[in-house]
């Protein structure tokens, strides 16, 4: 009688005709089935966790300080070995180069050629002070423009080769002496250091903290303004709707980032670099799209029966908007916010890259990337570490947003 079991199942199935599955439970089920979205959710969660716990990690000594500059640890490549060893290694490499250079110069009077080879791959020796703190904005731009003829470093006179050789030898000696006593030299920079000797890992995590924070706060602001304007415009209609939407139209016709740039230039040197002003500037303009989305949703919902019913029972306008209409647009708003956040982060980084965003000592991913671009030919990690961290995060946010859209709105266009 094995058949009985299947019969039992059938009875069950047939009795469960109206299985009440809430929109959210259903959406969650669909989201979980989307493997990429789940992976993205984990990665995003990991980023958030890391960003939140960064100060804890630092005080626990797991993470180095992101501001501490150790001049002798400049431009160390990513490695699991202690910094002291790396410094000695690169100094020795440099010494060898210099000695070879000297030797060949004695043989060959034509020194220009050797000069070139002697100095090209000398990461540790170049001491390049950035005017980053003074005026990051102009520095960034000028630095980029000078990229092409940026191959000249180091001393001009041949005597300085001898000087440097002496100096390097002395440094190596000093380091050898202190390597086991000075705790600084036992530091491990697994993602290398930047050109001021700061830990890239710590800087990237703290950069992420700022970028993610701007993303969250900006999104919240934009969504709140957008919901407010959109729902008023959609629900009240008439002249108010007309006025608001005309305004939105005009704002739309302006190149959006350019307006942000104008605002950043308006606030002047003092205001620029302040994170608050930055995300106010971005949020002021980015509510446009969401207000349109909300307005459209509200208009299509406002004529539906359930709103009629609510109104016939004496519910006032605010109550109808907040209790009846907005909850029904929540799905769209959530999806939109998930997709808005990466675009915020991108825009902030865009400004920082141009030197109009966050300024030193704070750094966002955009700042880090723009710093990395300056030395990318020789020190690729300084570009790749923040660039990849940022891209992975944006990638996951986009995947998550797509996944949420598919989950919350199974009929949506982008469902493949």
């Amino acid at each position, binding site marked *: 009688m094995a058949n009985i079991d299947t019969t039992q199942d059938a009875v069950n199935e047939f009795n469960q005709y109206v299985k009440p599955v809430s929109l959210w439970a259903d959406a969650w089920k669909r989201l979980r089935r989307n493997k990429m979205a789940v992976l993205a959710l984990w990665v995003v969660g990991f980023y958030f966790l890391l960003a939140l716990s960064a100060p804890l990690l630092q005080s626990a000594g797991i993470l180095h300080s992101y501001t501490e500059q150790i001049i002798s640890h400049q431009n160390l490549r990513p490695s699991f070995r202690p910094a002291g060893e790396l410094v000695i290694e690169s100094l020795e490499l440099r010494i060898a180069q210099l000695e070879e250079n000297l030797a060949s110069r004695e043989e060959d009077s034509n020194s220009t050629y050797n000069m070139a080879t002697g100095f090209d791959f000398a990461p540790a020796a170049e001491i390049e002070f950035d005017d980053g703190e003074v005026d990051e*904005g*102009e520095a960034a*731009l000028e630095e*980029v*423009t000078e*990229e*092409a003829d940026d191959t000249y470093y180091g001393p001009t006179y041949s005597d300085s080769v001898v000087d440097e050789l002496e100096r390097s030898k002395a440094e190596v000696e000093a380091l050898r002496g202190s390597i086991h006593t000075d705790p600084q030299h036992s530091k491990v920079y697994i993602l290398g250091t930047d050109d001021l000797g700061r830990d890239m890992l710590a800087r990237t995590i703290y950069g992420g903290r700022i970028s993610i924070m701007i993303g969250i706060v900006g999104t919240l602001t934009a969504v709140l303004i957008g919901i407010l304007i959109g729902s008023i415009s959609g629900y009240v209609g008439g002249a108010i709707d007309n006025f608001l939407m005309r305004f939105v139209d*005009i704002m739309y*016709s*302006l*190149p*959006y*980032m*350019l307006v942000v*740039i*104008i*605002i*950043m*230039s*308006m*606030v*002047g*040197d003092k205001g620029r670099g302040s994170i608050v002003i930055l995300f106010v500037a971005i949020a002021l303009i980015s509510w446009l799209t969401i207000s349109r989305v909300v307005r459209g949703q509200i208009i299509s919902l406002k004529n539906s029966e359930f709103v009629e019913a609510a109104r016939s029972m004496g519910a006032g306008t605010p109550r109808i908007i907040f209790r009846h209409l907005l909850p029904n647009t929540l799905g769209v708003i959530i999806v939109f916010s998930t997709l808005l956040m*990466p675009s915020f982060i*991108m825009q902030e*980084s*865009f400004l920082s*890259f*141009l*030197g*109009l965003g966050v300024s030193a000592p704070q750094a966002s991913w*955009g700042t880090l*990337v*723009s710093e*990395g*671009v300056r030395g*990318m*030919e020789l020190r*690729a990690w300084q*570009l790749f570490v923040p*660039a990849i961290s*940022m*891209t992975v995060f*944006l*990638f996951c*946010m*986009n*995947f998550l947003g797509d996944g949420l859209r598919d989950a919350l709105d199974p009929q949506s*266009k*982008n469902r*493949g």
Partner: protein
Amino acid sequence: MARFFIRRLLSLVPTMFIIVTLSFFLIRLAPGGPFARERDLPEAILQNILKRYHMDEPLPKQYLRYLGDVIRWDFGPSLRYRDRSVNEMIDTTLPVSTALGLTALSLAVILGVNVGIVSALKQNKWPDYTAMSVAVVGISVPLFVMGPILQMVFAIWLKWLPPGQWLSDHGLKAIILPAVTLSFPYFAYIARLSRASVLEVLRSDYIRTARAKGLKESVVIVKHVLKGALLPVVTYLGPALSGIVTGSVVVEAVFVVPGLGRPFVQAAINRDYTMIMADVIVYSLLLITANLVVDLVYGLLDPRISYK
């Protein structure tokens, strides 16, 4: 149709007027002037400078004067580069930016649409997965990361293409890297958009009708699917162009392209009023006109839209 066109054309005037007015007062009312940096300037000299730029006059008078100048397409002298007029700077940089932007836009549209169609037709097969992974990368990787990486790979490591500068130095090769970088996110978006919209049209009733009539699949695609499927792409051209204008600021910085973007950012940092204003006007005029053209094209493609 003609009447609609003229009416739309006339509607540009108030929009531009509002943009000019808003940006004029926004910039002027902000604390600190373009000469605030040069604090050591003796009062008399400062007054002289201000007088030279008519900035000693009351604001309404300045505004009217500026409005008159703008109508005559005269943006005045640059406040920063005192020997150059803003018009001169725009005349030299705008063609460069336009060339870069149009190349990028064409690349994005042509490649995006084709990749999107192929992706939709090969749905859930490897060409689709490949194309859509590339598209997600395109949407997620910021321009200023993509630019330097492409520069590093193709210009520095492989040495196939020049790392920067412009046509005068490297000929047509110089436009490849910046244009590809600039077009990438929009290519990605257009590819996704056209894929989704081709898929949607493929599922529609009228395609079922076309198939039930015994038409060949190729005829069904070319004659029945494409026209409807490409309409969303046309609608997206406006926002895409706006994005390309903004993106060109970064791309021009990365690839040292002598376009409009760099003077604009410099002007924003230096608070070079006349330059900022001119940039805003030029950019907005460009975008508004482009949107107008997009609307017209849309109307031509969709018979359901009538101009009354």
